[in-house]
């Protein structure tokens, strides 16, 4: 009975799958709200976008703008509190909201598939990978387990994973992050869906792995003829993967159009502000600084009247922009290019950025920090849970680090996870002691002095700014108390009152209102928390500040403001800034010198110009190629690295990079596998750790080229 009922339905869908030729997905005037006990919170308002067959549409915006909610709205999976309150979502002409639960189930996974941010979390930890994959066609097409298994093998092959048989039989935790994300992609492709929704699919991955995954998604999209809705906060990534783009702000689409139109002829002030706040090649902290978007992202229940962006917009006119809701307006002459701005005709989009302050480049002073041949090895139990008998293993977290840092200089330390940058920070801070080598702070050795044995001045001199803004402040202490505690510890001020005044001065320094001293951290936004973290780090007049990815967890528009704040304080206080990051765009923007690390080794070090121009270390070259750049005029050489970063527990022999290096065949005699390469000087201050012959290095071409306009 049941069979007979379902079979014709399936057949209908199959027919639809083959014969339909309108837009795959058509979202028109969609509004979604979440309902809490207190109020209705509109998450998405009047949102329209359509995806044509074979097209890839990017959905871009900052966190909280509603882009993920759109995706869940398409999947009709908004949870108990969420509801579509207006508009429609049509998939191949059929309204998804009118479908029954069974019909929806037939479409999910079969016609529309979704890929999420956290690959580990989206795979069932207690189920073998194969079982999770074959489930999809078995549910939707009713094929036998053997056929499904065969198809799983094919698809796993397609996502370029080695040894598919073994992979299908393993559990998710046995794979690396990059492999897991490939499995998630494979799972989405098992039933050859017509639409693929990708929600920040690469955010949790390392840059070089991200590049490979993006490449894969692009190729497979073409191969399977799948349309894509690509959700990301990264404009560069959207440029690389999509045909069209839709920019969202505070629950609304503010501009949609083809990549070319939106990137080169933007028609909305928010889009423009967004582009001005990200570090594109050519931006420079001294003569072409970034411009942060003033103000804060409005909370969903505190949105202004009229234009949501109005209060932060340079072009906003009282009486015009703050009236009624603003509709999307088509741009004449462009293909499906819309903007939600009343004044787009009045604005001179070509006008150069006004009011940006050029500053003098800082002059590096004397050497304050000198690292000589620093090594840090850890001994870890071979098996963390049941260890003991199997003996210990040595992890070489840092291998012979040597460099100097000068007063008022910014030195960037670049590398992916496991490269040893965090270990270095720990040793420098005194949370760990060095295994070998020396750290000289003003010619005093501190590498063996743990933090509890350092004198107050040394501790105050070397401070740190942390990565995660949600973690950097103690949630149960007011902002003021936390800064004052640091002042107490550093012995600043004689009385409570003096420290209170100093704390207020620090809040001024990081441009936070003085009332914030009485706030709890949860009442602050991410950027504000990060500012408090900076104030705390500078409370003892720090001379060396280690900034561990201080802006990577922040939204693009906030990143610029926090970066600039750091630069400004550095200029005032002649601080030495050690800027740890994996994001080469921001590194190029703000650093004076760059050090590239891979698996505990410094593979290249030099001034910013030297490192960003050939000759490169092969890893630097790949890293540069992997970073997405949101500029249509940039041409990038395409280098995709195979595999993942090896584990620091089990590093390859010889050169640490040899397992993924594309230049390895050029070195004769398998030298790369046998010996760690020597450090070679190229220009004054430019060193590369590589076996490649001089001629080969000289032949290298620049990875990033600005095309003539």
């Amino acid at each position: 009975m049941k069979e007979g009922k379902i079979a014709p339905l399936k057949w209908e869908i199959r027919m639809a799958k083959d014969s339909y030729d309108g837009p795959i997905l058509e979202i028109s005037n969609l509004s979604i709200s979440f309902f809490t006990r207190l109020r209705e919170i509109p998450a998405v308002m009047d949102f329209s976008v359509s995806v044509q067959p074979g097209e890839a549409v990017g959905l871009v915006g900052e966190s909280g703008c509603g882009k993920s909610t759109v995706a869940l709205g398409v999947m009709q999976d908004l949870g108990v509190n969420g509801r579509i309150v207006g508009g429609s979502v049509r998939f191949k002409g059929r309204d998804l909201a009118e479908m029954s639960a069974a019909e929806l189930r037939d479409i999910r996974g079969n016609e529309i598939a979704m890929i999420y941010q956290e690959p580990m979390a989206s795979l069932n930890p207690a189920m073998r990978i194969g079982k999770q994959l074959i489930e999809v066609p078995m549910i939707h097409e009713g094929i036998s387990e053997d056929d499904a298994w065969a198809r799983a093998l094919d698809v796993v092959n397609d996502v370029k994973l080695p040894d598919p048989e073994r992979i299908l039989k393993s559990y998710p935790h046995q794979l690396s992050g990059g492999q897991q994300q490939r499995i998630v992609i494979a799972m989405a492709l098992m039933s050859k869906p017509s639409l693929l929704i990708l929600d920040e699919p690469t955010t949790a991955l390392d840059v070089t792995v991200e590049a490979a995954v993006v490449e894969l998604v692009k190729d497979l999209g073409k191969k399977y003829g799948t349309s894509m809705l690509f959700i990301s906060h990264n404009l560069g990534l959207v440029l690389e993967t999509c045909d069209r783009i839709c920019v969202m702000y505070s629950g609304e689409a503010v501009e949609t159009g083809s990549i070319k139109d939106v990137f080169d002829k933007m028609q909305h002030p928010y889009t423009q502000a967004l582009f001005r706040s990200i570090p594109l090649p050519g931006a420079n902290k001294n003569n072409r600084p970034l411009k942060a978007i003033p103000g804060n992202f409005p909370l969903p229940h505190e949105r202004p009247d009229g234009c949501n962006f109005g209060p932060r917009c340079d072009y906003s006119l009282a009486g015009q922009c703050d009236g009624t809701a603003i509709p999307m307006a088509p741009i004449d002459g462009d293909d499906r290019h819309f903007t939600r701005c009343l004044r787009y005709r009045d604005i001179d989009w070509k006008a150069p950025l006004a009011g940006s302050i050029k500053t003098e480049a800082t002059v590096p002073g004397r050497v304050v920090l000198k690292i000589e041949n620093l090594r840090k090895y850890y001994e870890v139990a071979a098996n963390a849970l049941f260890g003991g008998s199997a003996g210990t293993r040595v992890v070489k977290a840092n291998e012979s680090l040597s460099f100097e840092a000068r007063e008022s200089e910014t030195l960037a330390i670049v590398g992916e996870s496991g490269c040893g940058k965090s270990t270095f920070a720990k040793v420098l801070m005194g949370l760990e002691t060095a295994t070998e080598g020396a750290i000289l702070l003003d010619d005093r050795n501190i590498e063996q002095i743990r933090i509890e044995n350092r004198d107050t001045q040394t501790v105050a001199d070397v401070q740190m700014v942390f990565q995660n803004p949600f973690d950097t402040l103690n949630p149960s202490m007011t902002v003021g108390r936390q800064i004052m505690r640091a002042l107490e510890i550093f012995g600043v001020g004689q009385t409570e009152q003096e420290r209170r005044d100093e704390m207020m001065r620090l809040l001024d320094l990081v441009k936070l209102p003085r009332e914030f001293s009485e706030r709890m951290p949860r009442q602050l936004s991410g950027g504000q928390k990060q500012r408090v973290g900076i104030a705390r780090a500078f409370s003892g007049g720090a001379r060396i500040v280690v900034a561990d990815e201080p802006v990577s967890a922040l939204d693009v528009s906030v990143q610029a403001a926090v970066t600039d704040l750091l630069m400004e304080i550095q200029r005032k206080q002649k601080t030495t800034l050690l800027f740890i990051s994996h994001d080469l765009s921001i590194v190029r923007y703000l650093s004076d010198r760059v050090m590239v690390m891979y698996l505990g080794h410094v593979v290249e070090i030099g001034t910013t110009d030297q490192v960003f121009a050939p000759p490169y270390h092969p890893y630097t070259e790949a890293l540069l190629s992997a970073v997405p750049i949101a500029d249509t005029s940039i041409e990038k050489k395409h280098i995709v690295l195979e595999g993942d970063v090896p584990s620091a527990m089990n590093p390859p022999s010889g050169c640490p990079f040899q397992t993924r290096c594309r230049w390895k065949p050029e070195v004769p005699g398998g030298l790369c596998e046998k010996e760690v390469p020597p450090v070679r000087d190229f220009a004054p201050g430019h060193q590369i750790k590589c076996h490649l012959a001089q001629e080969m290095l000289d032949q290298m071409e620049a990875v990033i080229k600005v095309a003539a306009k």
Partner: protein
Amino acid sequence: MTMFILRRIAVMILTALCLTFIVFFLTNLYPNLEKLAKTQGNFRMSDGEVESYLGKNGYLQPVGVKYGQWLGVLPGYVIEDNEGVARGRCIEPGMPPEDAPRRCGVLQGDWGYSTVFKKDVFEIIGEKLALTGKLMFWVMLLMVPSALVLGVLAGMHEGSRTDRALSTVAITTTATPEYVSGVLFIAVFASTAVGLKWFKGTATSAMNDATFENFFLPVLTIALYGMGYIARMTRASMAEVMTAQYIRTARLKGVSFYNIVVKHALRNALIAPFTVIMLQFPWLLNGVVIVETLFNYKGFGWTLVQAAGNNDIELLLGVSVISVIVVLVTQLISDIGYVYLNPRISVS
């Protein structure tokens, strides 16, 4: 895996030694021995008589030595009294001292003699353990499945009306200790005052012939208290799993709700409750003692009360050893089961 189990067993033996020593130490404190001497001799013994009685029976040796003898790793004491008759730990009445074994302790299977039951401790424990085993079997059979079903049903739709109702039931049962629920059950179902008389208020007859009528109330009483706890654990675990990203993945793959629960959620959701069930044993033992006392079911728990109440040292030690071993073995099973259930932990 073998390595892991061996390590666990080593820790277990160490724990068992520590625990039995503590029990041995506490039961062999002088006031306890004095009480023993007086109950064995007469209550009007003078201090000197007590001392000589204890001395004659080897009770005045250092506690470490006594523990070693009880354990069977040290040779049993031999004391000659004034008349030249050798008395010894291992010398049975009427046995020539030369024939007696050198060591006689728990390890040799000699668990001592109960002063209350006038029987061999090992024999009593075996008998009582079988009775309690019967009780526990039915308790587990009632408790575990109903708790799991309750928890899974409640956690499946967190915040729903079913969830609220089932959670309230679970909270109420965890708030009702056995001596309260047992009293209530007897009052409602077995008393003349209410007059329902569906069940019997004692389970003494169930020792030989357990029927629904005489056995259901004690089983229900123990099961109910533990059930609420396991159900709440299962509910929390299930609710957490149901909000996990991979459940959303499964849902958006088009898996039906039934299959999501059964194939995707259940295994992950049962990891936490499994350990809890196993770790419930020390707690269940409490229930057993209370219920056996309340329903006059002369099993292991009842024996514990008798032994402790009457200062029957050897029997109390035997009971302690067994309960400690039961607890430790269940902990071991829980550890192994956890590794087995949770593929994320690999034992290489």
